[in-house]
């Protein structure tokens, strides 16, 4: 198995929204971040992978068709969904007794260790948990059967920075335990993914805008602020997008060192992923 996930021409139409011909692959041992604003199509993509919605196109998980081998595939997947879980009217103990019926390799000891580590009460109803606690029990339930891959939909949404950091640490630990494991994580909080993911897929209005290595985005991409005369000398093939501001131009470039050398710009700023996203959406070519 080379790829954990392979999407080919995946489309889904809703009134007022369309997931349009999505294709990407996630190799083994890689963390991929799926970014985009609310309603961009991240959750729809995840639901398509999990066969929760009917779509056009083909999806392979662990090299197997996600519809034909649905049950087999899901035995090796751990899933966290932002707005959905077993039931709010269960206790953490109850979750254990249910989950062990779903997964043959459910590790009860591991699950209770996670509960201890996350300081989650055993006999309190989940509906009375805080948002952070709710997310932590979802994560404990998703990783206690030692899945080969995790699919996480907005696992940090609505949480404070401390809890968000704790949760990202759990994912780092999960990957460190076995380097063949993979994660697909969707989030609209791009800073969470900057230090976690190896690749970033940017999805906007149901289309993939880019699918790039995070290091490449953060190390090589640059933003130049210049006047109109300086902007005019930059060749079209040397920049990705530009934005015309009131008194200056902002230009997103792919290789900041090359631009510095070629055009003699002294300052080329390092953009955040949010800024790169904005250039792709609002900028011009």
């Amino acid at each position, binding site marked *: 198995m080379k790829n954990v996930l392979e999407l080919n021409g995946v489309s889904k139409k809703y009134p007022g929204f369309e997931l349009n011909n999505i294709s990407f692959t996630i190799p083994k041992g890689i963390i991929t971040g799926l970014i985009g604003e609310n309603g961009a199509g991240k959750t729809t993509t995840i*639901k398509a992978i*999990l066969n929760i919605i009917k779509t056009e196109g083909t999806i392979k998980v662990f090299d197997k068709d996600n519809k034909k081998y649905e*049950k*087999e595939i899901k035995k090796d997947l751990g899933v966290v*969904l932002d707005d959905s879980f*077993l*039931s709010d009217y269960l206790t953490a103990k109850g979750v254990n007794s249910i989950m062990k*019926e*779903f997964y043959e390799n459910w590790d009860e000891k591991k699950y209770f260790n996670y509960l201890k580590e996350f300081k989650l009460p055993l006999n309190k109803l989940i509906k009375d948990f805080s948002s952070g606690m709710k997310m932590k029990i979802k994560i404990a339930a998703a990783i206690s059967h030692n899945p080969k891959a995790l699919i996480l939909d907005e696992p940090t949404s609505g949480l404070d920075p401390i809890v968000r950091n704790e949760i990202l640490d759990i994912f780092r630990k999960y990957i460190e335990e076995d380097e063949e494991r993979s994660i697909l994580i969707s989030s609209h909080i791009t800073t969470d993914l900057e230090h976690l993911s190896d690749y970033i897929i940017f999805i906007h209005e149901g289309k993939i805008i880019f699918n790039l290595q995070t290091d490449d985005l953060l190390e090589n991409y640059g933003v130049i602020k210049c006047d109109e005369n300086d902007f005019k000398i930059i060749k079209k093939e040397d920049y990705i997008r530009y934005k015309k501001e009131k008194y200056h131009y902002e230009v997103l470039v792919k290789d900041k060192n090359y631009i510095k050398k070629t055009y003699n710009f002294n300052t080329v700023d390092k953009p955040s992923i949010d800024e790169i996203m904005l250039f792709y959406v609002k900028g011009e070519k």
Partner: protein
Amino acid sequence: MKGLIKKDLLNLSSYKTSLLITIIFCSIAIAGTENASIAPMIICAIIGMISLSTFNYDEVSKSEKYILSLPVNRKELVISKYIIAISSAIIGAIIGVLLTILIVNIMNSVRPNNLIDLDYDNLFITSLSGLFGIALIQAIQIPSIYKWGAEKGRIQMFILIFFMVLIIVGASFLITKLGLNLDIQKINNFLETFGAYILTLLIIIMYTISYKVSYKIFIKKDY
């Protein structure tokens, strides 16, 4: 499948107190009215209806989406709901029968001069009638819930039942109006001989059709 049933049973465990109150109420009713047919019908209906609240739990927690991400297919999910619904109705009827026998025996031992004659045939047929009633409601309500959701499904079900009652009332009105001479005695004899078989067959047919409709709706549903 076992996991799905376990989840629903754990959700339903909050109804323990309601069930206990129902049993106490029925015990008092049997003792007070000396009517042996109350308990199986009431308990069967209450437990049968309570079992459908698993759909409400799922709707409140939006759990269907999550459950579909687990190693389980849609067919198993629908089957598990029917297992819960049917077995709860049957368990309700059994509890009702056992409670009736217990209360009647206690009363007979306390008051040996005023014995209640427990007609087991009658007890069986009333339990089966209760089972038929709740099976009819469940058979209509489960597909309605799959189609319209737990809240809307309940309203649609009441509308359906209203129309069914309207049809039955209309039919009996027509029979009277047209002056059709039905031999009630013959009908009663027929029902006494074949009633239990007919009811059992109807219950099986209703659940089978209901399951097929529910599955057809659920397989096409996006979450």
